[in-house]
């Protein structure tokens, strides 16, 4: 095969790969939009579910999901920033770096169901917190911790050394340098990671279905220790009654709402990242 042909062939191959990737996404979006859009109306978004979800709306599910991820973000963020600062600024030994990396990637690799079982055993049974949304938030925070930590770490660690040295040469202590120079510049990385993590967490079913949610008969929680209903577990419940066309219709509608929320988080993350790039490029 001559060189020119080979070159073109590989160019087309990469194109095909990109198109396949985009097509899968577009197909999924298309199907969800096509089937979900007829279910969406004002009442669907603002009313409580009735008849096991086959009629009524999903307001409790939306608030349940949003509540879970907001609190998981709040729990996760300080721990992730602390770990990232420690890893970036205090760890000098290569071995310790490798160890921390291995731990973070292992935590990321644990199947989400295992997190659920862990939460069930530790928080629900041993600590006696019962099935409650705060337990769900804690477990989701653990799940997204690696994503947020690594994103924060990379944005702090990519700040050139001369910024640290310039700050310390002016007589600032290490902590002042971290809090006045590194954190303000690295914060957008933390927020980007957080939104990506949250976008993942909001769609998770397995870790929260035993520990934080109930399938029917829930309203807005009035305390930390009450179960909520969430979008993904609601879809699961509706899909189990798929023989009922009304339930199926609502399952598509709920899916569309869930996907829209995920897209919203992802686009916000992308915008923050782009804005930050524009600043750091100057």
């Amino acid at each position, binding site marked *: 095969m001559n060189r020119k042909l080979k070159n073109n062939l590989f160019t087309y191959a990469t194109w095909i790969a990109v198109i396949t990737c985009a097509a899968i996404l577009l197909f999924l979006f298309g199907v969800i939009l096509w089937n979900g859009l007829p279910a969406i109306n004002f009442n669907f978004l603002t009313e409580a579910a009735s008849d096991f979800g086959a009629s009524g709306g999903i307001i409790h599910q939306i608030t349940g999901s949003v509540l879970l991820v907001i609190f998981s973000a709040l729990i996760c963020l300080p721990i992730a920033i602390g770990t990232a600062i420690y890893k970036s600024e205090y760890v*000098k030994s290569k071995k310790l770096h490798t160890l921390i990396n291995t731990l973070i990637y292992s935590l990321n690799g644990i199947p989400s169901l295992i997190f659920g079982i862990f939460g069930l055993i530790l928080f629900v049974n041993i600590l006696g917190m019962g099935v409650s949304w705060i337990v769900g938030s804690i477990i989701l925070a653990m799940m997204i911790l690696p994503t947020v930590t690594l994103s924060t770490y990379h944005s702090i660690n990519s700040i*050139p050394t*001369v*910024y*640290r*040295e*310039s*700050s*310390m*040469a*002016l*007589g*600032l*202590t290490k902590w*002042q340098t971290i809090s*006045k*120079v590194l954190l*303000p*510049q690295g914060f957008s990385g933390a927020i980007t990671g957080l939104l990506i993590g949250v976008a993942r967490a909001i769609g998770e079913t397995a870790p929260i279905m035993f520990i934080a949610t109930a399938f029917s008969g829930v309203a807005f929680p009035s305390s930390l220790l009450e179960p909520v209903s969430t979008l993904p577990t609601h879809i699961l419940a509706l899909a189990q009654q798929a023989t009922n066309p009304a339930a199926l219709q609502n399952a598509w509608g709920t899916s569309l709402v869930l996907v829209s929320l995920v897209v919203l988080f992802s686009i916000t993350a992308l915008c923050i990242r782009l804005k930050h790039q524009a*600043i750091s490029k*100057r």
Partner: protein
Amino acid sequence: MMEQHALKPKLTVVGKTTEDIIKIEGLQVWIKENHILNSIQLNIPKNKITCIIGPSGSGKSTLIRSMNRINDDVDGITTQGIINFNGTSILEKENDVASLRTQIGMVFQKPCVFPKSIKENVLFGIQHLKKLSKLEKLQSVEENLKAASLWKEVSHRLNDKASSLSIGQQQRLCIARTLAVKPEVILLDEPTSSLDPLSTRAIEDMMVQLKEEYTIVFVTHNISQAKRIADHLVFICDGKVIEQGPASAMFSCAKDPQTKAYLKDEYCAC
């Protein structure tokens, strides 16, 4: 205020012409297995410009970076020997490096302004050391930007982003920021190597003015620059001090053949 400013240098110049503010004895530095500096013996005279020259890789930067211990954070570094600053040994582990660095300031090769306004950049160091009133802040900004000969260019846009300045202006801003902390010694590590000739001249002229109030240690690989500004000259090569002394004497008749060769042809055989 301004009168004081004008009087002070004259007073300091009179009595303290030969006093050494920094004395280095037997300084050894390793980075991992590499022996970077070998038995450095060096005196930095007060209120003079000391230029450290030498070929690249000779250890100039490591030497100047040892003087305010900014090297401490370099991975795998070992430092031995004595650095005396105003009579205290600064390499002791328990010394407060942050307060040491307020007395020995440093300007780096590549200008590095913080993503803040020009005003905030000048105040960046000083406002973390003590509480300043609004008036003191304004005074400090004006005084130090004037000392760094930047005031005329930026006085009408102090709240603009510092990154909007040219590279040469940014470097002068970095110097102003260092002056604001009021150190006794200013270390400059090849501060003009990334600048255009005009900005370079502006910084050289500024150094000559600043030496009345501060002691200046200036690392450069540019011999003609050293000729223009140096009072005291140190030539180091391959981690050793080959020769040091008054700049005029060294430029007219260097004792060491290596120094002679380097000052003439910028070539060093070591």
